[in-house]
């Protein structure tokens, strides 16, 4: 597959780059519609409470208020991707601090804010379960009394406050523990992390006189948003148009959120309505990463071979399931780490609590389980006197091995990344001063799944329009997809105009998630380009009076291979006029996920198909710990990641670097500070994300182990680098000060007390 390519594999500037750097790109908050109103939502101040009475009378009288909506204005419907448990407004009871109870559309944001204060709500507080451990107790307050009756498209195992319990069983666990020389048991905890995209959620809804709804919104998944608005409000899909605005970062957190409420306000007021979230609202009402509790019991042979692993994972999904059920399933899939284990039992639970709804965040499901698996791996290595590299090499999944679900992996580059990283680090000659240490972590995760389609058409002047339902959230995907079209049609990149993310005008796409655009949409674009190329050549053949086989298309011309001076430019072939034998030039492509075989009998309550491709990476850290403050200083980082094929290397590097820094924040200091169900740090002062001063030096090695299904060999890139920093740093801490952190984030305070506890000193 190593064809000579003009664009694929080269550093290419973003096709919308000029638009972005000149301030001309229109983001969600930049939409202005004539006569538009501004929306604000009234949110629950209680984690769990019955709503006894709502009165909007006083608020409605405020001049400038044009519409107020509550559950009363909403059809009594629930929606949700995996499980339909989510109402548009809290009905009868509220389940988290921040849940919307009412919304106002007014002439200015100020008036809308004032109106909120005039809405009267009477609550009766209920006992709340604000932690996983509280929620899973048999006598816990029940958050969703009707859980058993909620509609779901999948066979979910649900009970109590657990909305999904996925089980994967391989081999015979008890037998495995019997055969083990040593058994290790540990418990790990990870925190709630916010995506912290700099652009807040923003949407504008306008309803025309025929009742057709147009939604401009910050979504990564225009088709899903359309579907969910339809489901939530009972409006047919055909009456809803969703346009994805230029997205200022998403990282999974921008799916459907404010649109259903806005549609109600637009319908009731008869005017366009715009809503931009405050930063505080982002923390309370966004969709941050699931916090977790992981119990890991592992049996090993004295030579380090993993024999048996029992994993209990609990994901804190907050008050509603949202994507939690998928997170839980994918978490289960790689709960063993990137290893082959003969006997395993994984129980992954998606747990309700009375807290903010958790959702999708880059690498979802992985960071939690990988932290546990990789930190315990080092503990095991140390106890057995085996080098951390050697124990990993011995157990790592390689091509031909089976995942815990019985699927055989065909192209996984974890070992290649481990070897490359170790070589760069000169691992076997590593040195460390006092309080310094080295740590490594390896990960594998699925990528590239779910259907995609693309449409390519030639314009009347010989240029092209590429239509894709996917959203470019900063990943450069529009550029990458345009490169594929330009490459296959052999025209300059500037001849391709990309139209994206419009449910009326662009073909279906599953969404910009799961490291899937290059892998899934890329081939759809390629297929469309190749079909279009055939149409062009056939038309040229008939107009030039030669057989098709004698022709070639390159550089905007169709020419006779044997005599290139006999050619027709695309601009001529494209002419649409009587007497030119004109034809329409339009083609589509579809990506259909290849079938993978696996062993369904091993899983229960597991609503995920097997995945077509796997991304992997290894990171090695050298750190220093200050024993007096607990502060970790990162001295050296090596990142090796298998991307299959780097279609646009500068974009690929940017994705790896960006994901890595988010992983660094997750490892060291990011996290919601909860007080019961209340968030004490809902802003960027108190929820710190890495700044320019916090960036360590890194060495990045990109490995290209071609995927066998993708025409260019590409695998997904966007997520993998976020996963290793947590465990790699924890392992380096262990190396440095002799004790392994089992909780994220590894704040100085926690590391300080970890060291002191080891010395037998406890907090006062």
């Amino acid at each position, binding site marked *: 597959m190593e064809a000579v390519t003009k664009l694929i594999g080269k550093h290419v500037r973003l096709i919308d780059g000029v638009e972005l750097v000149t301030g001309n790109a229109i983001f969600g908050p930049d939409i202005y519609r004539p006569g538009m109103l501004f929306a604000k939502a009234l949110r629950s101040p209680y984690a769990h409470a019955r709503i006894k009475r709502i009165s909007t009378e006083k608020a409605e009288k405020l001049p400038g208020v044009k519409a107020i909506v509550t559950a009363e204005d909403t059809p009594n419907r629930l929606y949700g991707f995996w499980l339909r448990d989510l109402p548009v407004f809290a009905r009868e009871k509220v389940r988290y601090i921040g849940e919307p109870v009412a919304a106002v559309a007014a002439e200015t944001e100020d008036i809308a804010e004032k109106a909120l204060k005039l809405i009267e709500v009477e609550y009766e507080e209920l006992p709340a379960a604000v932690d996983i451990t509280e929620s899973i107790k048999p006598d816990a307050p029940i958050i969703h009394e009707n859980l058993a009756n909620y509609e779901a498209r999948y066979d979910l195992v649900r009970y109590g406050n657990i909305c999904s319990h996925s089980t994967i069983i391989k081999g015979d666990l008890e037998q495995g523990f019997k055969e083990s020389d040593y058994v290790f048991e540990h418990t790990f905890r990870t925190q709630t992390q916010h995506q912290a*995209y700099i652009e807040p959620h923003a949407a504008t809804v306008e309803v025309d006189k025929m009742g057709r709804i147009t939604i401009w919104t910050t979504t990564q998944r225009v088709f899903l948003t359309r579907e969910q608005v339809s489901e939530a409000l009972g409006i047919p899909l055909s009456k809803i148009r969703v346009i994805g605005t230029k997205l200022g970062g998403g990282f999974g957190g921008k799916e459907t959120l404010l649109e259903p409420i806005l549609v109600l306000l637009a319908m009731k007021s008869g005017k366009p309505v715009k809503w931009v979230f405050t*930063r505080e609202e982002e923390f309370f009402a966004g969709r941050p990463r699931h916090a977790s509790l992981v119990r890991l019991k592992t049996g090993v042979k004295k030579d380090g071979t993993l024999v048996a692993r029992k994993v209990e994972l609990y994901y804190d999904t907050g008050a509603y399931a949202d994507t939690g059920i998928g997170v839980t399933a994918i978490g289960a899939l790689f709960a063993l780490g990137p290893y082959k284990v003969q006997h395993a039992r994984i129980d992954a639970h998606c747990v309700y609590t009375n807290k903010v709804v958790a959702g999708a965040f880059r690498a979802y499901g992985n960071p939690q389980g990988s932290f546990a698996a990789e930190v315990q791996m080092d503990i095991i290595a140390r106890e057995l006197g085996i080098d951390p590299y050697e124990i990993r090499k011995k157990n790592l999944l390689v091509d031909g091995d089976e995942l815990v679900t019985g699927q055989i992996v065909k192209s996984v580059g974890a070992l290649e990344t481990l070897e490359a990283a170790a070589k760069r680090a000169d691992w076997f000659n590593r040195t460390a001063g006092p309080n310094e240490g080295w740590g490594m972590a390896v990960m594998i995760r699925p990528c590239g799944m779910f259907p995609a389609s693309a449409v390519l058409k030639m314009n009347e002047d010989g240029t092209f329009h590429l239509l894709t339902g996917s959203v470019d959230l900063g990943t450069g995907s529009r550029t990458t997809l345009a490169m594929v079209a330009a490459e296959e049609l052999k025209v300059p990149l500037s001849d391709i105009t990309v139209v994206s993310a419009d449910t009326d005008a662009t073909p279906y796409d599953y969404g910009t998630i799961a490291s899937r655009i290059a892998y899934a949409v890329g081939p759809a674009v390629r297929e469309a380009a190749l079909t279009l190329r055939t149409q062009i050549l056939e038309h040229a053949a008939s107009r030039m009076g030669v057989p098709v086989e004698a022709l070639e298309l390159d550089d905007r011309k169709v020419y006779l291979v044997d005599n290139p001076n006999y050619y027709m430019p695309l601009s001529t072939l494209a002419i649409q006029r009587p007497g030119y034998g004109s034809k329409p030039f339009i083609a589509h492509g579809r990506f259909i996920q290849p079938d993978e075989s696996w062993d369904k009998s091993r899983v229960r309550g597991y609503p995920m198909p097997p995945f077509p491709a796997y991304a992997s990476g290894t990171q090695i850290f050298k750190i220093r710990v200050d024993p007096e403050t607990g502060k970790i200083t990162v001295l050296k980082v090596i990142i090796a990641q298998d991307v299959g094929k780097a279609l646009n290397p500068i974009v690929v590097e*940017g994705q790896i670097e960006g994901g890595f820094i988010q992983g660094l924040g997750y490892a060291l200091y990011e996290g919601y500070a909860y007080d019961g169900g209340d968030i004490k740090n809902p802003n960027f002062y108190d929820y710190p*994300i890495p700044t*320019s*001063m916090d*960036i360590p030096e890194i060495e990045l090695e990109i490995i290209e182990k071609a995927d066998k299904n993708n025409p260019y060999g590409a695998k997904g890139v966007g997520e993998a680098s976020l996963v290793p920093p947590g465990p790699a740093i924890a392992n380096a801490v262990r190396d440095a000060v002799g004790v392994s952190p089992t909780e994220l984030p590894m704040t100085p305070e926690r590391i300080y007390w970890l060291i002191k506890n080891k010395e037998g000193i406890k907090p006062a």
Partner: protein
Amino acid sequence: MSEHLIKITVNGQVREAKVTANLLLADLLRDELGLTGTKKGCDGGECGACTVLLDGIPVYSCLTLAVQADGHEIMTIEGLGTLEKLHPIQEAFLDAGAVQCGYCSAGVMLSTKALLDENPQPTEREIRQALVGNLCRCTGWYKIFDAVKQAAVALRNGVASQ
């Protein structure tokens, strides 16, 4: 709420406006003057997406009242270069891959301009310190540092700029 007639030079053009005392400069620029290149990302002074240059100095336009800018010169991202001729900083950001979603980019580029106008040959540490008032979540910062260094070289070599 008192109203004031103010005159601000924005990107070289004198603009007059009648504003309430509490109107933010960011909102004047975006909502009244249609210059939406200046972004808002937080609830006040936390992210830097709203950075503009006030008499050449980077300020948060979300913490500046429009009346405070009366009689002063403002540069927004729209004034840094033109569609026909980008500023070397804009070129460098595109070449180095320093723009992903682009939402923070205007603020970062204007902070960069202020830095390079004052310090044409900054060290890496000086670059990091100059940009610490701008948050970026997409890039991880590495290519932004590259871009600033590239822009510094281009400007020192006398590449034409606005």
